[in-house]
């Protein structure tokens, strides 16, 4: 980038610096006011309240089929409630905002035809992708964090501040549980990187935003289905979906890193390749939208 400083006078318009194009703040502003961003934020922010109302109407949760889940202790404390919200949403609900923010970001610009004007501004292609990726990941992270934070606040207000009751028995002090919850949320984000990368790559390949979002969600579902095929045995270890609930390892008396590390490894590995594919493809692509 520093070579740009050496460009002979007159090559660029006054004040133009490639590294200053499409600043993150500008890209965030461009995306923030979109209706889907606001709707997604509202859904995630409202879900804890929906659950609180559901528990209030339906009474205390009880285990089904003898399977012990975080549902059983949902109303024990605010921390429990936050963990439960994470539990019910990590499988699918949190996939949607990630796929949406990352899958929509380039494809929607293409569908609006605004992409070519950004590129002709000119925003260098790699720079455009970095800005868009950073903002999309930032929005995804915000979506993933929003839910448990709202749930923690609302849950604490309704069920009180107390230790995390672990459904299999035992408990974690609230002071210990909140950092663990933060770790769980961080893992959820890392495990969603593969969805983010897939959506982002598709976003650079198509001009149809829904195609990119739907493709990413669809492939995530295919991953879940494959993970249900136990005949695949250890091959399932390499499915990102296999580790989607590994964050629950953070919410047990002995913090267990193995699953989360494996899940992160799988997710990050796929994500790196897919991100690289996105950058490679976009750098060479003819923009005809």
């Amino acid at each position, binding site marked *: 980038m520093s070579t740009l400083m050496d460009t002979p006078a007159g090559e*660029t318009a006054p004040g133009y610096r490639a590294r200053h194009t499409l600043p993150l703040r500008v890209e965030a502003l461009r995306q923030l006011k979109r209706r889907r961003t606001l709707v997604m934020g509202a859904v995630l922010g409202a879900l804890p309240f929906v659950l609180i109302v559901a528990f209030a109407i339906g009474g205390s949760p009880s285990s089904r089929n003898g399977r012990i889940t975080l549902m059983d202790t949902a109303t024990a404390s605010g921390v429990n409630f936050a963990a439960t919200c994470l539990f019910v949403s990590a499988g699918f609900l949190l996939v949607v905002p990630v796929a949406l923010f990352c899958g929509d970001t380039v494809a929607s610009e293409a569908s609006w035809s605004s992409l070519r004007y950004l590129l002709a501004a000119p925003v260098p292609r790699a720079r455009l992708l970095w800005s868009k990726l950073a903002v999309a990941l930032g929005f995804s992270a915000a979506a993933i964090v929003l839910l448990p934070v709202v749930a923690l606040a609302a849950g604490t207000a309704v069920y009180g501040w107390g230790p995390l009751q672990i459904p299999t028995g035992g*408990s974690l*002090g609230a002071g210990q549980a909140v950092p663990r919850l933060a770790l769980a949320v961080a893992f959820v984000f890392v495990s969603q990187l593969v969805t983010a990368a897939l959506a982002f790559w598709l976003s650079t390949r198509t001009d149809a935003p829904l195609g990119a979002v739907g493709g990413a969600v669809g492939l995530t579902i295919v991953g879940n289905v494959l993970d249900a095929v136990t005949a695949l045995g250890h091959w399932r270890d390499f499915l990102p979906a296999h580790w989607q609930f590994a964050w629950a390892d953070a919410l047990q008396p002995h913090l267990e890193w193995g699953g989360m590390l494996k899940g992160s490894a799988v997710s990050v590995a796929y994500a790196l390749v897919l991100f690289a594919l996105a950058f490679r493809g976009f750098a060479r692509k003819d923009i005809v939208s």
Partner: protein
Amino acid sequence: MRRRRWRVAAGAGALVALAGAGVWSAAGASGAPAVHREDRVLDMPGAKIDTSFFTAGSPHDKRPAVLIGHGFGGSKTETKGQAEQLARDGYAVMTWSARGFGSSTGQIGLNDPAAEVKDVSRLIDWLAERPEVRLDGAGDPRVGVTGVSYGGAISLLAAGYDKRVDAIAPEMTYWNLSDVFFPDGVYKKLWAGIFVSTAGGCQKFEPQICAMYNRVATAGQPDEAAEKLLESKSPSAVGDRIKVPALIMQGQTDSLFPLGQADAMARRIAANGAPVAVDWIAGGHDGGDRETGRTQARVTQWFDRYLKDDKSADTGPAFRVTRTGGVNSTDGSAQLRGASSGTYPGLESDPHTVALTGREQSFANPPGGAPPAISAVPGLGAGLSGLSSLGVGLSLDFPGQYARFDSAPLAAGLHLTGSPTVRIKVKSTGDDAVLFGKVYDVGPDGKQQVLPSQLVAPVRVAGAKDGKAVELTLPAVDHTIEAGHRLCLVVAATDLGFASPAAPATYTVSLDGGGLAVPTVPAAKTASAGLAWWVWGLPLIGALIGGALLVTRRTHTPDPDPELAQVPLQIAGLTKKYAKSSDRYAVRELSFRVDKGQVLGLLGPNGAGKTTTLRMLMGLIRPDDGEIRVFGHAIRPGSPVLSRVGAFVEGAGFLPHLSGRENLELYWAATGRPAGDSRIEEALEIAGLGDALQRAVRTYSQGMRQRLAIAQAMLGMPDLLILDEPTNGLDPPQIREMRDVMIRYAEGGRTVIVSSHLLSEVEQSCTHLVVMDRGRLVQAGPVAEITGGSDILLVTTVEPVAEAVVDKVAVLPGIGSALRTEEGLLVRLEGATTTELIAELLRLDVQLTGVGPHRRLEDAFLTLIGGSA
């Protein structure tokens, strides 16, 4: 009954393979050598023993033999998998069903030295006759014995009674059956009952054993004869004779054969001078993960070392304990990790004293011993005991039936490995007191209470009427006590698993000083997480692949041409073929130049390649060939020089959810240039959107978007302005206004390129013209030169000219093309003069009203296109 010595070769002669019983079969796994199995029933004194013999590979190779015993209640079939694996690993493997189990006949003698143990010696005799088996001497094969539980005990007993055994690997088994069923004189009733019923009832046993069982179970208390009987059948009876390398694997969640049994055998065999390794596996008879894959692999390694004499075989650490890290929430399994040390530490290594507090407490032994406290519950749900290591426990003490002594919360975590001990004073209203000691791990909230491995230690205190001080040896476990947790000693009067006195009594228990001695093994280091290589490798591979994908050959960007620094646009030899249309060129060998101050019209019908050219000019698509230079700089995607170009190509592109003004402001912000340079108000004035600027763009009409897009292209007043079909959707006054805007724009020394297929509009605003058709340049030059060129003539006629005549004109020598229009005939001359044309027309009987230079651009354009057709 006097038996012959085991060494006597009763074997070969006495063993009669029953006719027709030999069955050959082969089991092959893909890629691995096929395993041959020979099933045979061997006739032995008092029983017919059902055996299987497994080999793999060449029958001529001499190999060590391995005998695999099965568990109590099982048969030889349960060891088939391990037998086949060992056969593939190069052993001759024999499995058999012990007396009274499977298809074997005879009575169960609880590994009687005269029966079951003799059977093993006869099997070894039989092995010595086999051609596949390697011999250490005549009648002495190289042989190891392994097995789980009942089969583990036979391996110890075989090594004790038969000197030909060279190595053993007993798993989850007993050293002294009397200690197992009558620990400290307390009858382990639940397990004993399960044991007998598993065998199929008392009648399946030797009558002596059955009688003993009935006697003890009725009394609820062992007698000396019973203890003697069980002890005589135990490996401990020949402990001093077991001198072969022993791999001892014992379960941690095992209330039947607890770790103390393994401790006793390890110490005795090690004292005999044989190599010993102790491996505490996670599961046990109470359930949990028996780590079958790992233990069988370790047994193979052990035999590789001591039977095959493979010095490179890794026999593993002298002491290994499996520790549970937590639950793997992905599949619900417990995470197991090994901790190991180079020496076996025993059960009382490096004790830490934890002070206990609690006054003297009295509690009742309920009459009939009911209800009993609950600790281990054999047979109830596999893995229940394993849960204790996860901070979960199912254990129960009834109020008034136990004494409890607590420690203060531990300042630092402690890892208990072995048997804690504590001195207590016991007083009973009866003669004997039977007590059950256990140590709970109590969480900081006081509610979470875990009994490690669900184990209790029974103790019978004889003559406790006057009070007696005893040292209580608590169950051997491996358990982490976190900092902040307490240890809690509970001494209870009852336990579900054991028979306690039926007579009611009151026990009084107090601490006898000293606190709880908690053994630790600091040398046992937990192996690192044991993560698969791919946990680190996979992201690395991902990064490498990603990096490789991003490495691109640096495309050479030509140096700027200083001579062209003042030339807004020069295109040379530009060619582009879209991937999907292999034969058709979108743009082909296009060359033209635009100078400063020009308003250039780029003209051509739809599909002429105008837009493709402009897209290449903006760096959106790559030309296949040729070069575009803007102010001397070659264009590449994102070339910085594009910041001097404003463009409106193929329609508007806005964010529909933002207002017109926001769109323009954010677009300018995206260019990264100073806000003061945008001259946004001037641009907006040209757009003339008024109040609509504050509305979201999605509410705009086509024309409004068009005008906003042109305003966007003009932001910052670029040196080169490109407008593609700018008048689409505009009404006539706006079109006129746009024309003026373009002319004014160029007057300031800036340059405008306008593309259009509606030629009449640009006719008046453009100074220069580039005409394209089907990707090729047709003509370029000043408008006047193209439109007013003398070589294009408009021939007006009285009446419309017939098509045939037009064709005739077109083929005349010196005529480029001829085209019929509403007004007459448009003719392009190529060499012929006007006079010659008139002469020819008159000759063709065309009634002329006039011939003159044509000034209308549209007609000129059509002529040009026609000429190239």
